[in-house]
């Protein structure tokens, strides 16, 4: 039986929202903490602030890292585009081969009757 994925998503979100601790529900909290409700709210605001600053700091660091990585990729691309030792060796081989053939032809032309 095929279970459609789209039907799972709302259920999943609903489950997640139930799982989150909601401050309005009294039965979730022990009665001893009921009295210190205002301080909790202030603390949560502080928490939000610190989380926000941490996130911003992380974001900044990540974007710096990403910039560095992008620079590295650009440098890598450039160095990949540059020809290396194999291409140089191939070229030297072509040149020597070409001139070798030319020398061979020239020697054949010089004494066409020699067969050795």
């Amino acid at each position, binding site marked *: 039986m095929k279970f459609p994925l789209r039907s799972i998503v709302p259920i999943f979100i609903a489950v997640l929202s139930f799982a989150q601790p909601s401050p309005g529900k009294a039965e979730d909290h022990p009665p001893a903490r009921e009295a210190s409700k205002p301080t909790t709210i202030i603390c949560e605001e502080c928490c939000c602030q610190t989380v926000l600053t941490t996130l911003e700091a992380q974001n900044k660091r990540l974007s710096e890292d990403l910039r560095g990585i992008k620079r590295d990729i650009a440098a890598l691309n450039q160095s990949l*585009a540059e*020809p290396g030792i194999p291409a*140089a060796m191939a*070229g030297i081989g072509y040149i*020597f081969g070409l*001139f070798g053939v030319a020398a061979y032809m020239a020697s054949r032309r010089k004494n066409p009757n020699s067969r050795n």
Partner: protein
Amino acid sequence: MHISDGVLPTTISLATYALTLAGTALSLKFVRPEELPKIAVGTSAFFVASLIHLPLGPTSVHLLLPGIVGALLGPAAFLSIFIGLFLQSLLFQFGGLTALGANALMMGVPALVCGLLFQLIRGSSLLSNTIAGALAGGLGTFLAASLLAGFLFTSGEDFLGVAKLALAAHIPVIIIETAISAFTISFIYRVKPELLKWKQG
């Protein structure tokens, strides 16, 4: 220092191709069979020289060597440079095949001029040979940069600005090339002076 594909107008490309082919054919006439190994070595040196990057501040420059090739190979330098540039454009993607004619002229003509100059002023002492080699090396790069500016002018660029830029970018190359040519020629003169003589058939 290489002109890429699509920079030059078609007429200029075709004209430079025709001139280059004529020059190469003429150059072939001067090739003597016993000179072939020397030309092969000169060609491969020219071919590889553009891979030798010398770090210079934030950028790097590479050797061109038209002067030294001209001084060593004489009229056969044109053929040598044509082959070297052809393989460079195939294997290294330096310059384009359609601009090969212009590139070969840009390097070949300075090589011939420098070769003639070198033979005229080299004399028979180590000092005069070294000075002639240095002059050939420096002048070769200078002429090549000037020709580059001239070719770019035909593609509609502002001639003076580009010429200045090309020359300014090549001042360090000219200096390095002068030093390398002087060293190479003086070394060859001390070790195997007959390499510096042109044998024409």
